[in-house]
C-alpha cells in the first residue's frame, strides 16, 4: 500500500517536473526541473529496492550531468538574456509527433498481457549481486565501456586541445 502511494507520488513528480522543464521560459530553470525529474526516477528505483541504482542515478545524473549543464549555461553568453527564446517555431509538429508517440506507447502497453512478465521484485541486497554480475556475465560490456571512455576522452581532447608548435 505504501509502495503504491510512493510509486504514484514519484511518477507524478517525474511527469510534472518534465513538463515544467519543457515549458519553463528560462533555460536555467529548465535545468533545475530536469534535476527534480531525475530525482523522481531515483525515487522509483528506491521503491523497487534498487538502492545502488538509485544512488548512482543521483550521483551521475544529478551530480554530474545536470551540474555540467548548469556550468555550460553559466559559461555561455547571451543564453540567459531575456530576449533569448529557447523555444523554436516547431511547436505544432513537435506536439503532434509526441502525441502520436505517447498514443502508440500507451496503447501497446494496455493491450499487452503482462501477466507473469511484470518484473520480479529484486532481493533486498542486490548491490553485491550487481557487482558480481558486472565482473562475471557482463564482463565484456564492462570492458568495452572502459575503452569507450578512453575513446571519448581522446576524441574530446583532440578536438579541443591546442595545437602548439604544429606545422600547418
Amino acid at each position, binding site marked *: 500500500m505504501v509502495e503504491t502511494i510512493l510509486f504514484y507520488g514519484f511518477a507524478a513528480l517525474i511527469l510534472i517536473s518534465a513538463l515544467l522543464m519543457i515549458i519553463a521560459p528560462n533555460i536555467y530553470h529548465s535545468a533545475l526541473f530536469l534535476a527534480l525529474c531525475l530525482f523522481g526516477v531515483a525515487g522509483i528505483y528506491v521503491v523497487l529496492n534498487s538502492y545502488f541504482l538509485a544512488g548512482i542515478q543521483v550521483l551521475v545524473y544529478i551530480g554530474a550531468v545536470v551540474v555540467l549543464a548548469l556550468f555550460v549555461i553559466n559559461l555561455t553568453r547571451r543564453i540567459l538574456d531575456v530576449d533569448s527564446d529557447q523555444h523554436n517555431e516547431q511547436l505544432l509538429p513537435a506536439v503532434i509527433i509526441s502525441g502520436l508517440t505517447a498514443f502508440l506507447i500507451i496503447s501497446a502497453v494496455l*493491450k499487452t498481457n503482462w501477466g507473469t512478465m511484470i518484473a520480479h521484485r529484486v532481493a533486498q541486497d542486490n548491490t553485491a549481486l550487481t557487482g558480481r554480475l558486472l565482473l562475471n556475465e557482463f*564482463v565484456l560490456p564492462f570492458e568495452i565501456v572502459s575503452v569507450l571512455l578512453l*575513446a571519448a576522452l*581522446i576524441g574530446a581532447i583532440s578536438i*579541443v586541445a591546442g595545437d602548439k608548435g604544429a606545422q600547418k
Partner: protein
Amino acid sequence: MNIALLTHEFALAGIALLIFILDLSGAGKKVTGRVFTFSMLALLVYVALSRKDGVILNGAYTADGISWFAKLIFLSGAFLTGMLSTDTLKLSDKRAGAYYFLLASSVLGMMFLASSKELITLYVSLELATISLYALAAIYREEVLSLEAGIKYLILGAVSSGILLYGLSLVYGVTGTTYLEKILFYTSANGFQPVFVLAVIMVILGIGFKLSMVPMHVWTPDVYQGSPTPVTAFISVASKAAGFIFAVRLLSYTLIKAGFVWEPILAVLAFLTMTIGNLIAIPQKNMKRLLAYSTISQAGFLLVGFIGAPVIGVSSVMFYLMAYTVTNIAAFGVVAVFEKSTGSNEIDDYAGLAQTQPVLALTLMVALLSLAGIPPLVGFAGKFYLFYAAMEKGYLWLVIAGALNSTISLYYYLLILKRLYIWDKSKTSTLPKVHVPAMVTAALIICCVAMLAMGILPGFVIDITNAAAEGMFRP
C-alpha cells in the same frame, strides 16, 4: 571460458594502444598512419586465416560465420581508409595520433558488435563504434563545416540511440532477458505480444540512423560533406555495415517471429529510402553531397535484400556490404585525392580530369558504374542477388521499384562521367591537376581488382556468405 576466441579483438586493442604510445613518443603522422594501415592489413589477413567458432559468456559472445565475415568487411574498410588517410589528411602531427586511435577504437567497437549476441554488449559496442566517429567527423576543427558535421552527428546520433535503447529495454521488459537466444526462445514459446510492435518500430528507427535510412537520413549529407574525406568513406561503409549486422542479429534472427511487423515497415522504408535518396541526388553540385545521397539510396537497396527470405536475405546483404565497401572507398578515394590537390569538391571542377589523369578518371568511372549496378562489376552481381532475395519472398513491386531506381541512379552517375570526359573547352580554361600519392594508388588498384574479381566470379564470396547465413539460422 575460452578466452582465445577474443584474440582478434585483443590484437586490435593492442594496435590501438601501440598507436597511442607511438603518438606519445612523438612519431609523426606518416609513421602512425603507416603503422595503422599495415597493422590493419596484417590483422585482416590474420582474421581471414584464423576462423575460430565458439561461444563464451553464456552466449553473450559468439564467433560464427556472420561475425567472421563482418570482421573482414570492417577490417578491409579500415585498411583502405588508412591507405587513403596517410597522404591526404590535413592534420598536424599532434592530432594524427588521435585520428588513428579513434579509427582503431571504432573498428574495435564494430568487431565486438559483430560477435555479440546479448543486448547490452550489442548496444555498448555500437556506441564505441559511433562515439569514435563523432570525434573523427569534427577533427578538422579549424573548418566550420567539419565542426558542424561533428555536432550534428553527435546530437542526432544521441537521439537515435535513445530511441534504440527504449526499444531494447521494451524487449527486455517483456522477455526478462538480454540474451538473444533466450529472447528467440521466449518469442517461440510465448507467442507475440503487442508491445513487441512498439519495440520493433523503435529499434528500426534507432538503427535507421546508422543505416541513413529515410526518415532518419537528414544528417547524412551534412556529415559526409563536413567530415574529412577518408572519414566520410569509413562512415559510409563500415558504420553502415555495423548497422546492418546489428539489424541482422536483432531483426532477421532474434525477432524473426515479429517478421510480420518489421517486414512491411521496412519494405515501405526501403522504397522511400531508394527513391528519396536518388531524387535528391540528381540536382547536387557537390561531389561529397552527391555521394551522400547515393549512399542513402544504396541503403535502400540493401534493405530490399534484408527483407528477403531469411537465409538468402542475410547472405545477400553480407555480400553487398563487402561489394559496397570496395566500391564506395574507390569513389571516395578519388574524391580525397582530388580535394587534396585542387581544394575543391564541386562536380564542375572535375571537368577534363580524363585528360590530365586518365587512370584516375577511369577508376572513378568503374566505381560509379559499379554503384549503378552495371555488369561485369560487383555492383551488378550484388544488386541482382539482393533483388533475388526479395523475389523469393514475393516482393515483386519492390524489386521493380529497385530496378527503376537503379536506372535513376545511373542518370546522375553518368552526369559526373560526362563532366570527366566531355567538357566545354571554351569555358574550362584550366584542367584539374591532380597528384595521386602511392598509397592511394595502391588502395584504388586493390578496390578496382576486387570490384572486377567479385563481379566476374561472385560465386566464391556468395558461397562464404551463404554458409555463414545458414550457420546462423541452424539451431
